[in-house]
């Protein structure tokens, strides 16, 4: 990893490839889709300014994905601190109507019901399980990278992942896993 800036076109391509997984993590870290988009923008700008890049397989430089997740988490924490009263109001409102305004996954019609069940099951997990699941499954990070992103020991990241999967299995009935 070095600190050289890469050109905006490369960033655009990189964001097209990874934007959905970054947005998913931002949604998990925030309360509303608007907050998630704000946090994602803020994180990308921070990453852009910091010039954190990795050398990709074809030898070109591209932004560091693990660093992007770290920036999203930091931006979400900053935003939560700034808007703590607003966040509390939104939490209460969501508790009242029992839903969130975000759709996390896009799928075909036949998968639609199933993806909604999984999404709801994930949302019932505690935050510290949710973030590990998202970073592992859709962020495609290693446990080492997850540990670095979340500032936790690697064994903790691995065990949280396993516990999260076990909880999801319990929530989603075995028949639905077929």
């Amino acid at each position: 990893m070095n600190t050289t800036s890469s050109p905006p076109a490369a960033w655009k391509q990189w964001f097209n490839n990874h934007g959905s997984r970054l947005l998913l993590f931002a949604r998990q870290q925030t309360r509303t889709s608007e907050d998630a988009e704000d946090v994602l923008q803020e994180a990308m700008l921070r990453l852009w300014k910091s010039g954190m890049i990795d050398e990709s397989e074809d030898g070109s430089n591209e932004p560091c994905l693990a660093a992007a997740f770290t920036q999203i988490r930091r931006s979400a924490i900053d935003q939560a601190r700034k808007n703590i009263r607003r966040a509390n109001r939104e939490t209460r409102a969501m508790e009242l109507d029992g839903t969130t305004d975000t759709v996390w996954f896009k799928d075909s019609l036949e998968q639609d019901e199933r993806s909604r069940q999984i999404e709801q099951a994930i949302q019932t997990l505690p935050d510290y399980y949710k973030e590990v699941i998202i970073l592992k499954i859709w962020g495609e990070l290693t446990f080492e990278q997850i540990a670095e992103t979340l500032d936790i020991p690697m064994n903790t990241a691995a065990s949280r992942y396993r516990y999260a999967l076990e909880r999801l299995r319990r929530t989603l009935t075995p028949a639905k896993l077929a």
Partner: protein
Amino acid sequence: MNSEFSDSMDPSLLQLERELQSLTPVAPGRDLLRSLQARMEPALPAHQTNKVTSFPWRRMVAPAAAAAAAVAVLNLESDRRAGTSRGKSVADIPDEGVPVIKWEPMPMRREYRQLLDAGYVLNENLQPMRHYVLDGMDQHEWRNGENASVRLLIPRQQRFLMPVQPEYEQREGLQQVRFY
């Protein structure tokens, strides 16, 4: 396989993991992409124009006067502490244990920048007078033995009235008369 410990996981967990992987997160909307792209565009240099801007003399007068006053007060204070007469250089005041840097005042330079014709006014005898404003800058400078220098620039503005010369003024015509 994404799992780093797939060997130790039971089949139902692996199946669940595969199912989760088959779900595709929703992509960011176009608005977000456009907004992000706009914010990531490098800032363009400001448009260059031939606009002539005048030097902000008047805005500088107050701070410069305050700075000059502060220097004068410090000078007086130092003189009092050292029991010296007014006007003696601060650099001449001895201070035990501290290396003394001698700062020598240089001759003050007065520079006139522009003379503005502010029109006509009437004096107390109701005689027409020409009103001029002269903008300038006083430069005070101190130098030490190592050729370092401290420079204090104080903007100066002088206003004065000149008697109207009848023959010349008749030729030019009294364009405007201002009453103050």
